[in-house]
């Protein structure tokens, strides 16, 4: 009997992802070891030269890796904590308005990153921006800052804007997680005289762990790959360079070999991470 589910059905999708997603990554392993650039027609094998450039302290690519790590950890923690608080808030019995609030808080996540970046460049403007003028209005003018040009502070401004944009996404997932917890648990707890805080610590939090694992993974994967938000807000300047702004920088300067080497190095890091992601995902599926 013929197969009802012929494998060639998967061929179209595999062809498209193969050519545009997988092939470029595979090619990276070859071009990473060449002096491929916009300035010469021929390619030469240069061994590990590009990787030496990456780890050369005078180029401060290590700084970019540090910024990426800080951005990733900070946005993951901030988004998780705020989203969890909002998810609890919106599932605590204000049913009618909760849908409206959920919809509004998610709204920033459907906007183009480009637009978010441009608007916040105006809001964070040191002299005319809404943030500083509001601070002055309420007598906190001393807190006004050069948010997007002050090395050391700017990365936090970028983290803040990205949290504003992304927190609704995590919140929507956590709300679904909270609503999936059977109500009977809470009823039993309240009959036993448990307080709201006890119910949160002993029921909500433990049962939400698989979902929190998923959102953490999503946050980490997003943070490590961050590019467009930084590109629009600061173009990687003032202490906000990340791995992908460095890749872009080399790319736009025509240094394709170095750009590919850094991309490929990071591809390997993400591949290892994805392995753990799939394990976490399949565990939450089993739960």
């Amino acid at each position, binding site marked *: 009997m013929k197969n009802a589910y012929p494998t060639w059905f998967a061929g179209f999708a595999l062809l498209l992802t193969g050519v545009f997603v997988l092939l470029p990554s595979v090619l990276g392993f070859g071009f990473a070891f060449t002096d491929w650039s916009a300035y010469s027609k021929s390619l030469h094998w240069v061994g590990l030269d590009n990787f030496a450039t990456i780890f050369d302290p005078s180029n401060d690519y290590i700084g970019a890796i540090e910024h990426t790590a800080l951005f990733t950890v900070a946005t993951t923690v901030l988004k998780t904590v705020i989203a969890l608080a909002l998810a609890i808030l919106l599932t605590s019995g204000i049913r009618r308005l909760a849908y409206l609030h959920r919809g509004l808080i998610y709204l920033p996540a459907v906007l183009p990153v480009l637009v978010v970046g441009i608007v916040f460049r105006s809001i964070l403007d040191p002299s005319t921006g809404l943030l500083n*003028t509001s601070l002055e209005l309420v007598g906190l003018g001393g807190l006004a800052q050069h948010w997007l040009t002050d090395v050391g502070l700017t990365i936090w401004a970028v983290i803040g804007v990205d949290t*504003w944009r992304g927190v609704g996404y995590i919140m929507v*997932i956590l709300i679904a997680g909270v609503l999936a917890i059977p109500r009977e648990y809470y009823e039993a707890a309240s009959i036993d005289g448990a307080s709201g805080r006890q119910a949160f610590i002993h029921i909500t939090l433990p049962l939400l762990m698989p979902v929190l694992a998923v959102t953490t993974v999503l946050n980490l994967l997003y943070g490590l790959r961050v590019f467009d938000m930084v590109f629009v807000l600061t173009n990687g300047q003032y202490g906000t360079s990340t791995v992908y702004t460095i890749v872009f920088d080399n790319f736009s300067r025509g240094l394709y070999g170095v750009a590919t080497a850094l991309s490929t190095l990071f591809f390997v890091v993400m591949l290892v991470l994805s392995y753990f992601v799939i394990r976490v995902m399949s565990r939450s599926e089993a739960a």
Partner: protein
Amino acid sequence: MQLARALRTGTLNLGAGGASLVALTPIYLIFVNALKTQPEASSMGVELPAIPQWANFGTVIDQGKLVSAFFNSVLYSVGGTVLAVLVSAFAAYVLARNRRRRHQVIYLLLIMGIAIPTNFVTLMKVMQVTHLIDSQIGMILLYAATQIPFSVFLIYAFVDSLPRELDEAAFIDGCSPVRTFFAVVLPILRPVLVTTGILSLLNIWNEFLMPLYFLNSTSRWPMTLAVYNFFGQFASDWSLVSADIVLTVLPVILVYVVAQRWILSGVSAGAVKG
């Protein structure tokens, strides 16, 4: 007791209202400043315009070449989405029904793109060799490819939850696999196809790096890249920049308002098994 409850509800509403306000303010800023004169909008303030400057929209449509950009955006997002959803449904269906080793490997290869980043540098090489640089067909194919991993992931989970008997019965009745897929399976998949379709539509509409890398001709630029370019040219004129942004995000917000239910369910579907 009654008072305590009212107080609690009040506090909860206040907290949620505050969060919504923080989420909305920047969006409000764009809309209100789009209607101001250039001097009025110079600080991107919260004040309403003295006289709404509706002509701003005409100006940006002209100067920002937004008519062609709009149709390019529609072409890329609709074309990319239709292609991505169709081939993803095709693939997810057979991969969810066959569980041999080779199918699991294909599934893994397809969804790997959710996690791994695009290597833009070598992708440029691929685009050059395939003559897809600076081409609209190239953009559609590329965008479709970027949306396949997550689409396959969502549709696969949905197919998995459907009883096998549905499609097996059709096949045994003499339908070919292709006919079974189109006549029986595709209609049942409708809810998940709508969800993946809308998510993909928004993703492609909002994206601006691919055209930045791979499109040279301004006549092929989508809305986002037109905004990017416009911002570079008129950075000091926030009223025009805002008007340009409004025209770019208005379709997004409309789709969001209409399709919120599907978007929010799709977002959490991958992460929460209910």
